[in-house]
C-alpha cells in the first residue's frame, strides 16, 4: 500500500553568514525549535497527531548534537509523545529527512510527520570539532577521495568537465543577481519565518545584564553588486593554478528549514490545504573525488523511477555547492538553465549543509505555486561522493 504524501506547511529561517551573520550566536537547537513551533502552528495539524520529527544535520555534534530533532521538538513545546530522530547524509540530510518521513506516511505507519534540517556553521565547523580520518583511507589509492576537502573535488570536476574560470564567475554573478531580484520582489518573504534572537551582554558600567532581542527575517548573503570582473580578481582557494574561488563557491551559512507532511487521509479528514505533494527520492554514489557530479546519477534515476522525462520538470533547485559542479551537472544532463535555480542559489544565499535539502524544498514548493507550475526537483551533490534528488508536485 502506497499512500499519497502532502505538504501542508513549508518554512525556513533566513540564511545568514557563518561567524558574522545574525545567527552567529544563535544555537541551532533553539533556532530549529522556534521555526518548528511556528511552522506546526501555521500548518493546522494537531501536535499530538505528529508521529515523528525527522531532522537532517551534517555535523550533528555539540550545539546540534544530542539528537537535535528530539531536543528541538521538546523545546518547541510538542507533546512528550512526539518522538524525534536526527539523520545525516551531509548536504542531502534535509531532503533525506523529508524522504524518510514521507516513507513512514506512505507505508501507513504514521499520519503526520515533521521533516527538516538545521546547521550552524558558526558553531560547528565543516569536518566537525574533532576532524579525524581513518588510516585505512591511505592504504589504498582508491580511497584518497575520502580525504579530499570539497574544494579540491570541485577543482577535479572543473578540470574533468572543462568548466572554465570565466564560466564559473559568470554563473556566480547570475546567482547573486537572480537572488537579489527575488529578494527585492519579496518572493523569499513567503518562504521565511521570522526568528527572534536574543543577546545578553554585560554592561560593565552599571553591572547589569543587557538583554536585547531582534527579529531576523531576511537573507544576508546576497552580493548584488557582484560582477564577473570583480570575481575574476579573487585567488583560487584550493589549488595553486585552480579556478575555484570563494566567489564562485557556496557560502558558509547558518539556517534551518521545516516542513509538515501529512497523509492524504489526514489532509481530507482535517480539511487542510496542501502546498504540494512529495513523490519520491533517489540517491546514488559516485567517486568521492568528484562528488560534485552526484546529481548526474541521482536526477535521471529519480525521473526514471517516477516515469517522467526531464521535459516534464518545471523547476530544478540544484544546490550550488560550487559553480564548477553546478555547471558540470547542467551541461552533462543538458538541463534547461532557465529552469535551474530561478531565484539564485547557495553561491548567493548560502549553504547551511544539513538544512539545505529542506530549504530548497521550501523554495521549490512556493516557487511552483507562485508560477503556477507543476513538477519540481530538489537535487544536490553530497560529500564522499553521492548525489540525491527528490520530486515535488504542486497540484
Amino acid at each position, binding site marked *: 500500500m502506497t499512500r499519497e504524501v502532502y505538504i501542508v506547511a513549508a518554512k525556513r529561517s533566513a540564511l545568514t553568514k557563518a561567524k558574522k551573520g545574525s545567527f552567529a550566536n544563535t544555537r541551532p537547537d533553539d533556532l530549529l525549535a522556534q521555526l518548528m513551533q511556528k511552522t506546526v502552528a501555521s500548518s493546522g495539524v494537531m501536535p499530538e497527531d505528529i508521529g515523528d520529527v525527522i531532522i537532517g544535520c551534517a555535523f550533528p555534534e555539540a550545539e546540534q548534537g544530542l539528537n537535535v530533532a528530539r531536543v528541538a521538538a521538546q523545546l518547541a513545546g510538542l507533546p512528550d509523545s512526539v518522538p524525534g530522530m536526527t539523520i545525516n547524509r551531509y548536504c542531502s540530510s534535509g531532503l533525506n529527512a523529508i524522504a524518510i518521513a514521507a516513507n513512514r506516511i506512505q507505508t501507513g505507519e504514521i499520519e503526520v510527520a515533521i521533516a527538516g534540517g538545521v546547521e550552524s556553521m558558526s558553531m560547528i565547523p565543516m569536518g566537525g570539532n*574533532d576532524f579525524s580520518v581513518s*588510516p585505512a583511507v591511505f592504504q589504498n589509492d582508491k580511497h584518497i577521495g575520502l580525504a579530499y576537502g570539497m574544494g579540491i573535488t570541485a577543482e577535479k570536476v572543473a578540470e574533468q568537465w572543462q568548466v572554465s574560470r570565466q564560466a564559473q564567475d559568470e554563473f556566480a554573478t547570475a546567482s547573486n543577481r537572480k537572488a537579489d531580484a527575488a529578494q527585492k520582489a519579496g518572493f523569499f518573504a513567503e518562504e521565511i519565518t521570522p526568528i527572534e534572537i536574543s543577546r545578553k551582554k554585560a554592561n560593565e558600567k552599571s553591572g547589569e545584564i543587557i538583554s536585547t532581542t531582534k527579529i531576523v527575517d531576511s537573507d544576508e548573503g546576497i552580493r548584488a553588486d557582484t560582477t564577473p570582473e570583480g570575481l575574476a580578481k579573487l585567488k583560487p582557494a584550493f*589549488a595553486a593554478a585552480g579556478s575555484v574561488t570563494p566567489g564562485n563557491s557556496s557560502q558558509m551559512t547558518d539556517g534551518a528549514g521545516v516542513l509538515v507532511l501529512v497523509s492524504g487521509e489526514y489532509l481530507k479528514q482535517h480539511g487542510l490545504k496542501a502546498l504540494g505533494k512529495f513523490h519520491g527520492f533517489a540517491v546514488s554514489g559516485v567517486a568521492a573525488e568528484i562528488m560534485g557530479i552526484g546529481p548526474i546519477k541521482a536526477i535521471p534515476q529519480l525521473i526514471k523511477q517516477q516515469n517522467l522525462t526531464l521535459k516534464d520538470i518545471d523547476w530544478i533547485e540544484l544546490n550550488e555547492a560550487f559553480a564548477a559542479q553546478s555547471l558540470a551537472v547542467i551541461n552533462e544532463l543538458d538541463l534547461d538553465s532557465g529552469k535551474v535555480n530561478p531565484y539564485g542559489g547557495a553561491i548567493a544565499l548560502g549553504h547551511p549543509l544539513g538544512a539545505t535539502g529542506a530549504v530548497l524544498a521550501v523554495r521549490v514548493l512556493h516557487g511552483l505555486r507562485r508560477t503556477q507550475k507543476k513538477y519540481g526537483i530538489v537535487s544536490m551533490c553530497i560529500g564522499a561522493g553521492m548525489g540525491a534528488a527528490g520530486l515535488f508536485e504542486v497540484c
Partner: protein
Amino acid sequence: MSENLFIRKVAILGAGVMGAQIGAHFANAGVPVILFDLKAKDGAANAIGDKALANLTKLKPNPVASAKSFAYLSVANYDDNLDLLAQCDLIIEAIAERMDWKVDLFYKIAPYLNPHAIIATNTSGLSVEELANSVPESLHSHFCGIHFFNPPRYMPLVELIPSSKTDQAVLTALETFLVSGLGKSVIEAKDTPNFVANRIGVFSMMAVLEYAEKFNIPFEVVDQLTGKNLGRAKSATFRTADVVGLDTFAHVVETMTAKCKDGFESSYLIPEWLDKLIKAGALGQKTKAGIFRKDKDGIKVIDIALGDYRPADKKADPDVLAILQKKSWAEKMAALHDSTHQEAQFLWATFRDLFHYCAVLIGEITDTPRDMDLALRWGFGWKEGPFEIWQQAGWLQLAQWIKEDIAAGKTISQKPLPAWVFKLSDGVYVAGKHYDHSVEKLVELDLLPVYNRQLFPELLLNERIKIEQHTLYENAGVKLWHSGDNIGVLSFKSKMCAIGMEVLTGLDEAISVAEKQCQALVIWQEKDVFSVGANLEEFGFSIMMNGAQAVQEIISAGHRIIANKLRYSQIPVVAGVRGYTFGGGCEIMLHCDAVVAALESYIGLVEAGVGLLPGWGGSTEMAVRAAAAQDPWTDLTKRYQNLAMAKVATSAYEAQEMGFLRESDTIVMNTREVLLIAKERAKFMAQSGYRPPIKPKVKVFGEQGIATINALLANMIAGKQISEHDLWIAKNIAEVMCGGLIDKNSIVSEDWLLNLELNKFTELAISEKTADRIQHMLSTGKPLRN
C-alpha cells in the same frame, strides 16, 4: 641615585606613520599607549587613530612584534579625551613639523598633564630650544626633544635633545627607560639643525653627490663603492636616498640650507637633476622610480648627462675595489689619497670632506667624537664611525693631508681644521679614553648605571669590555668562560655560530666541564645571532661521502649531546638568544631549561626548507610540548605546521605564540641585556634547588593523527600547492611528531620518538632531492622547491 621613572602610560600626539610606529614599539615593550589625533570630522570620533592602527601591520618591516601588542594600543582625540592625559607619564609629540601647531597643542594639553609627566617632541627639523621657550612655563623642566629614526622598532638610534631648561634628572630617567625598557641606543645631541646623525649622514651623502658629479662617477658605481665596501649599508648612497624618499631627503637638506651657516653651505644645495626628479614625482621606492628604476628588462639608473634612465650596468674599477679590500684603513686611505684614478680620488675627497666636516662640528652639535661615531653606527648602520676610520688611517697624517687639500682649495669648505685636532697625537680614542671637547681633553667613559646591564656593550675603537673572562674550556668550535661568579658562559666561535662537529663536541665537553666547575651554564653568543643551525657544508659533505652511516653519526651525536646531555645536565642551562635562531641552533635553545630572548629574535625550525626535519631532538621536543598542552591536538597541528612550512617567528613574542618559547621564558627589549638577565636567571635557578627534569612519558596521536594530517596534505598535493618532495618531508615530520604508526593515545618514551626522528631524518637526508636542496642552499643561500 636617580629616582625611578614609572611610565604607566604613554601618550603619542599625532597618529601619523611615525607616531603610530613609535606607539607600536612602546606597545611591543608592554607599555600601554594612547594614540591621539584630531577628532574625525564625520564617522567615529577616533577614526584617524583607528585607521593608523589598521595600517600598522601593512608596513614593512612590521612595526608590530605580535598581535598581543594591539592590546596595549588605544586611540583618542584632542576634543573628547584630553582627560586621559592625566594617566600618562610620557607624552611624545609627533605631529606635523609646524612650530605654531606644536605650540598650540602644548598649550591645549598643558592643563591636563600630571605634574611629573615628561613631554618630548619628536621633531627632526625644529629647534627644541625655540619650542621650549614657547611652551607653558610649567612644562619647561620636563620638556626635551626625542628623535626616533624610521622605522623606530628596528633603527637603534634615539637622539635626546635637552633645552637649556631641561632638568638633568628627567633626561637621565628618560635615557634609562629608552635603553632598558625600549631597547634603544641613545645619544644626547645639542639643539642644532638635524641634530647629529642626520647632520653628518646627510652631509656625507651630499659630499658623495657633489664629488660623483665632479669626478664623473656613474651612480651605480658610486653605490658599489660606498656600500658594503666601506662598511656601510648595502643600499649605500643613492639607493638609500631612494628608500628614504627623495622628497624627504631634500626636506632634511633644506633644513640645513636654511639654518646651517657653518662654512659648508655650498654643499647644502639640491642639485638640479635631483630637483627635476622630485618635481617629476620620481621620489624613490614609494613611487617605484627615483634615482633607480626597476624595469621589466632590469634595473635602470638616472644618468645626469643623458637626462634619462639607462641600464645600471657599470662596474667599479677592480684596482680601486682592490684598494678597499686592503687590511687596514691606513693602507686604504693612503692608497686612495695617492691614486690618480678618478674613483679613488672621488673616495678620498668624500672621506676628506666628511672628516673635515665632523671635526669642525665637534663642540657645536655634540661635544664628543664618540657620540658622533655612535650616531652614524646606530642611525645610518655604519660599521665604524668617521672618527674611528680617521684615527685608524693615521690621525695626524690625515689631518696633514686634509690641511693641504684645504689650502689647495680642493675642499667644500675653506674653514681650517680646528686646533684641537692637531693637539691629539694619536686620535680621539686612546686606551679606553675618548676626547671630550667640553673639557678639551681625553676623558674616561662615564656612562649611566643602566649601561652596566650591558656586559658586552657596543665598543668603539680601542675600547674593551669590562667584565673578566676566565676561560674554563676551549676548542676550535666553542669557548666556555666565567667572570668570577661560577656561571659558565658558552659561546660558539664559528661563522654565524653554525654548528659543525667541533661545536657539537665542544658543547659536549663544555657541559662536562661546567657540571664540574660551575653552578649554572648560559649559552650565549658574542655575535648578534644565536646560531643559524647545523653547518650544512660540513655535514652535507660527509653525507655525500659516507651516506646513511654519516647521517646516523651526526644525528646520534646530536641526540646524545643536545637531547640528552644538555637537557638532563646536572646544572641549570639557560639560552641567551638574539637574532637568528634556526634549525639546530633552535634545537639547542629548545633543550635548555629556560630561555632569555631579546625581542628581536627570529626563531624557527627551518629544516624542511633544505629537505630535512629537525633531527637533533627538535621534532621530538615539539611532540613532547604538544602532549603537555591544554588542547594537545590543536597544539600539535600548530607546531607541525611551523615545522612543515619552515616558519620563522618575526619576534620573540611571536616565537612564544608559535611554541618555540615557553610562556615562562623571558623576553627583554635590549639585545645587549640578554647576557646579564640570562646569567641572573641561571643563578636564580641554581640557587633555588635546581634538579634536572625527569624523562617524560608522551601521549601520542599515532597512526590516526598521521592519517588526519595526511588528509590535509592530500588536499595540498591535489591542489598542486606542494611538491611530491614537500609531501614526503611533511609526512615524515607528521610521523615523528605523532609517534609513528601505533595506536592513538599510546604512551611512548622520548627515546622512542628520538629513534623515529633518526630513522625519518636518515631517509630524507640520503634522498637525491634533499641533496639538491642542500646544494642549492649552499650555493645561492635560498631554499629550492623541488
